[in-house]
């Protein structure tokens, strides 16, 4: 899209200029760093993260590895790519934590509309495909028809759903109301689901929870109560790839609130650059485990840090560009 001039466009001129010079001066580097900063901000990478990132890149760019390089510009881009991949990849190579004694308990948490319920279905489908016997748990009793939604998702995935409470729905459930004013107790549902899973020999339990804001202390406490009632092996924080600068505050709030163990980046099938991935990984140090990239059950994959780095900075294009230079 023309209005979103990529880093490629911005840097191409700089590199043309640099190429004729061969060696990079400090001013050259600073100019390039400014473009990188701009590109990261346009990709929604958090400002603080941009700042520490560019200063690290600048330091390396001024060092020997660049001044000694055959093609200094190319070397700078390589450094950027490496640094990005490193932050994104911190601790990524780990599989899902399974319990020594089943059931393995996975709890989902995140902002409203982030993609938790959809993810529950995907996880269930994925686990089932891998030979597990998952159970989905409807512990969102707040959003209208969240329980119905999980039931439909479970049906599509052919995975059973534990839903003793109907939550908010017109068909015999609670009426729509502000959160916190409802009858059903999501903590009890979550707690009871574990015994149910043990009795019925399900080996993984995926608990869908209501969306909540980072600033909502009351609901954050509820999430913590759910966590403490079930002691999850994984607490997955689901975050929308389209999120902007608020990613930091939200991730910190959930990190503090429930101390999540891993991140799932959702809606990556869109055209957002997804700088939030970098922000969340960098600010919380928690690994990004999975990517959700569609509304279908199978639109789900393990996270690849290098692909994400390329996406954030439009790096594929840049590398081609530099090869051509």
């Amino acid at each position, binding site marked *: 899209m023309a209005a979103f001039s990529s880093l490629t466009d911005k840097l191409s001129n700089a590199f043309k200029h640099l190429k004729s010079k061969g060696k990079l001066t400090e001013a050259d580097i600073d100019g390039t760093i400014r473009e990188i900063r701009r590109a990261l901000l346009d*990709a929604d990478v958090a400002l603080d993260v941009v700042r520490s990132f560019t200063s690290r890149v600048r330091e390396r760019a001024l060092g020997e590895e660049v001044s000694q390089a055959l093609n200094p510009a190319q070397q700078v881009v390589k450094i950027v790519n490496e640094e990005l991949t490193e932050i994104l990849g911190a601790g990524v190579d780990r599989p899902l934590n399974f319990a020594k004694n089943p059931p393995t308990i996975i709890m989902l948490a995140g902002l409203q509309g982030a993609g938790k319920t959809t993810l529950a279905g995907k996880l269930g489908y994925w686990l089932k495909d891998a030979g597990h016997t998952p159970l989905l748990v409807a512990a969102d009793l707040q959003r209208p028809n969240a329980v119905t939604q999980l039931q439909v998702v479970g049906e599509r995935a052919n995975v059973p759903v534990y839903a003793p409470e109907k939550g908010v729905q017109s068909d015999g459930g609670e009426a729509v109301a*502000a959160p916190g004013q409802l009858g059903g107790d999501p903590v009890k549902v979550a707690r009871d689901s574990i015994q149910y899973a043990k009795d019925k020999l399900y080996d993984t339990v995926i608990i869908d929870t209501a969306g909540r804001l980072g600033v909502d202390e009351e609901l954050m406490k509820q999430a913590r109560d759910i966590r403490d009632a079930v002691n999850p092996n994984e607490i997955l924080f689901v975050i929308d790839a389209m999120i902007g600068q608020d990613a930091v505050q939200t991730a910190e709030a959930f990190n503090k609130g429930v101390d999540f163990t891993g991140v799932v980046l959702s809606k990556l099938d869109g*055209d957002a650059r997804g700088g939030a991935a970098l922000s969340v990984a960098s600010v919380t140090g928690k690994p990004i485990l999975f990517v959700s990239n569609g509304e279908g059950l199978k639109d789900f994959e393990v996270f690849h840090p290098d692909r994400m780095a390329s996406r954030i900075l439009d790096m594929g294009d840049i590398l081609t560009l530099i090869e051509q230079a």
Partner: protein
Amino acid sequence: IRLKEKLSKSSNPFGRVLFNILAKDQLAESDWEDVEDTLLLADVGSEASEKLVDELRNDARITGTADPQEVRQSLRSKLVDLVDSQSDRALNAEKPDAKKPSVIIMVGVNGTGKTTTTGKLARLFVSEGKSVMLAAADTFRAAAADQLETWGQKVGVPVVRSASEGGDPASVAFEASKQAKEQNVDVLIIDTAGRLQNKANLMDELGKIRRVTEKNLPVDEVLLVLDAVTGQNGMAQAKVFAEAIGITGVVLSKLDGSAKGGIVISVQQELGVPVKLVGLGEGPDDLASFDADGFVDGILA
């Protein structure tokens, strides 16, 4: 009550960064950067933020002063001007010459708050004594129609839905607009499925929904629901939705969170379409008209 609590937490009109600046007599380079940071953190975007700060600096140069108080005032009023350039924020259905039935289509990417806003809007119109009908033209997402039906029951308005899951959303829109016309209701609100703007076939479907509705009734409002946490991708969303179906207004949802929603500044500028409403929570009454001053104070908080 919860809402008020939430809002009062962010009532400080000028945030920490700006406050530090204001304690000085003269502005240094780093202070200008702080001003820019404040805008960036609110998702105003690098281009718009840079432009604003450049203007401020220019003004300061011309007047020969970099008096922090003046700069503060100037920043605030520049932002308000920018945000408030779109004056007419009334819903078309609320205008004295409103068509009857008035037709509103809700659109946006996945999970922004379309269905919830549909419910809240229905509640608003009902409270004004208007008759309302809802159409569940999201036949795709699991239990989307049930969710709308729950809202319909809560606010006491009928919901037209497809007999089967996975039905054709355009035929729901057609059927609903036909019924709305026959029954001469005041307002018909059509809820559509969330879709990402880079999916061409889904965007085409929106155009079709509009066209079949117009066989029965003119569509006088298309509201794009943007989530306040949305970053720079919000601009792409606005452009593509505007091309696909035409947008007459923006709803900025989830403004009760910590996100400021600064992307709507560029969206308004670019599309020439105003933010009409803001979402402030999940309850039926958590909907308010957009207030430029409050919004700007939120950004500077």
